[in-house]
């Protein structure tokens, strides 16, 4: 089972044996990996029926629900780690989703494509909506309805009470890169945030 590059990075921030909630877990590969390699327990959340059946078939406990409306299913501080990997931009209410994550998890991991990436800015300057490996859909046919730049996103983290504990940036291939802090919002194609709820 191969993980996406961003998922591989995510696993580094999941302590062995922790209880993990993977929101938008897709076919359950990341969760299965964490269960097998890291002795983790936990639950995946997904809404696509084919992915749901696949994950259940992998032995991943899977709760089918709508992340936008139904995260109240989970109790306060009931998970060590809550992961939202490449999902935030497809939610209707990113602010509510992040608030719920902060309530449920002791640690939150959020991975996102950066709309402030220089190529996107360039395409926009030429008067077109950007399309890229991270954002491969035409503007009229995309699940990604809430795109943000890293600067915007970090403002929102602050508003919902999530402190940035670690930020990992990567290029379009998903390879990690160390961009200077002030250039991150221009240079990074993707970012992974490790966040801790402000107590």
């Amino acid at each position: 089972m191969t993980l996406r590059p961003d998922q591989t990075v995510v696993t580094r921030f999941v302590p062995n044996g922790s209880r993990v909630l993977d929101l938008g877990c897709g076919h359950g590969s990341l969760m299965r990996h964490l269960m097998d390699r890291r002795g983790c327990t936990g639950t995946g959340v997904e809404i696509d029926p084919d992915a749901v059946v696949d994950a259940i078939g992998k032995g991943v406990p899977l709760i089918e629900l709508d992340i936008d409306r139904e995260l109240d299913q989970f109790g306060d501080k009931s998970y060590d780690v809550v992961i939202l990997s490449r999902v935030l931009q497809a939610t209707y209410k990113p602010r509510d989703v992040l608030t719920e994550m902060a309530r449920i998890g002791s640690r939150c991991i959020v991975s996102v494509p950066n709309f402030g990436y220089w190529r996107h800015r360039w395409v926009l300057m030429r008067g077109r909506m950007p399309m890229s490996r991270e954002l491969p859909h035409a503007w009229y046919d995309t699940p990604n309805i809430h795109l943000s730049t890293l600067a915007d996103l970090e403002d929102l983290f602050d508003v919902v009470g999530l402190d940035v504990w670690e930020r990992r940036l990567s290029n379009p291939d998903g390879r990690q890169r160390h961009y200077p802090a002030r250039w991150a919002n221009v240079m990074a194609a993707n970012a992974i945030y490790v966040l801790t709820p402000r107590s």
Partner: protein
Amino acid sequence: MTSRPQSAEDSVGIVEQCTVRLFEGERPLVLASGAVLAEVDVAYETYGTLNDTRDNAIFICHALTGDAHAAGLHRDDDHRPGWWDTMIGPGKPIDTDRFFVIADNLLGGCQGTTGPASTDPATGRPYGLDFPLLQIADFVTVHRALLAHLGVEQLLSVVGGSMGGMQALQWALSFPEQVGSAVIIAASSRLNAQNIAFSAVARESIMRDPGFAGGRYLEVGTSPDTGLSIARMMAHITYQSEAGMNQKFGRRFQFGEDARRGFGVDFAVESYLDHQGRVFLSRFDALSYLYLTRVMDYFDPFADDDAAAALAEVGSPCLVLSFDSDWRFDTSHSRAIVRELERQRVPVSFREIRSPWGHDSFLLTIDDYHRTVAAFLRRVAEERPAKETRR
């Protein structure tokens, strides 16, 4: 979307029902309430083959008015297969090519297992209302006794819909080490006032029928047929959805194109309910109906705050399913079960399946539903050897 595939290839074929006396003499059945039943017979059927390691058994728990005949046919000319024939058989989600499937008739029932209409050995008369009140835990006690009789110690899974789901849940909570996994479909861990109200009206219609004779109708030679059939007609309405009934019957007239305009059967749906009510009389006992509905009313396994602690410890996975058009036990009931199990750290999966057919969907062939159960059971079976070596 729904169909009943009945080709010979995917049926378990001709099956035989067995009856065994599981409790008698020195070993009576002591119920959760402390009451004692001196003798208990249980009707059951099995499908598929128990493997050498005796670890491929799946137990099927039936709903309120079900029976031990879960799959296959009793005779060649049987026109109705077992009640879960869509689910159980070669290549079906509960695959009899791989699994050894056990189904019995519930304690308190009337289709081969001891119930209130059975003869009380102490008096030589039918128990009637002297039959003790039952709890879901008592069903599990009897299921387990049947397993012991069959020489099966461990289950791969316990599976049930509606009241069968309650038994599966209870079993997993009480004896998690015996239950490798549980599939809980269209069930509830706690009936709400509306659920109880429906059952209350059903019971009232039975008990107020003059033929009920204070529960002594079997001795008196009467029968609360009117009450029982009305109870069934009403229950039938709650098992279906508005959309499903509209699709099946609409406002069609039963006889020709015109309304007769009377108080008899005029619309097609009335004819259907009338038929269901009548058919029910030939196969179900009014006292069983009272006792079994009452069991559900009192079921509340999560009243104890750490009810799932033992199950969480063992880590047997549970699959909880609901149907979006089910209003008898709507999705909120299943979600409540999931919330409790998940809170107590039981590995639990949940889906709300789309279906227009209401509560009865759990008996039908719905692709998304069947493939989910199949995927879950396949995985549970695959993980079994790994679990053994870890121990």
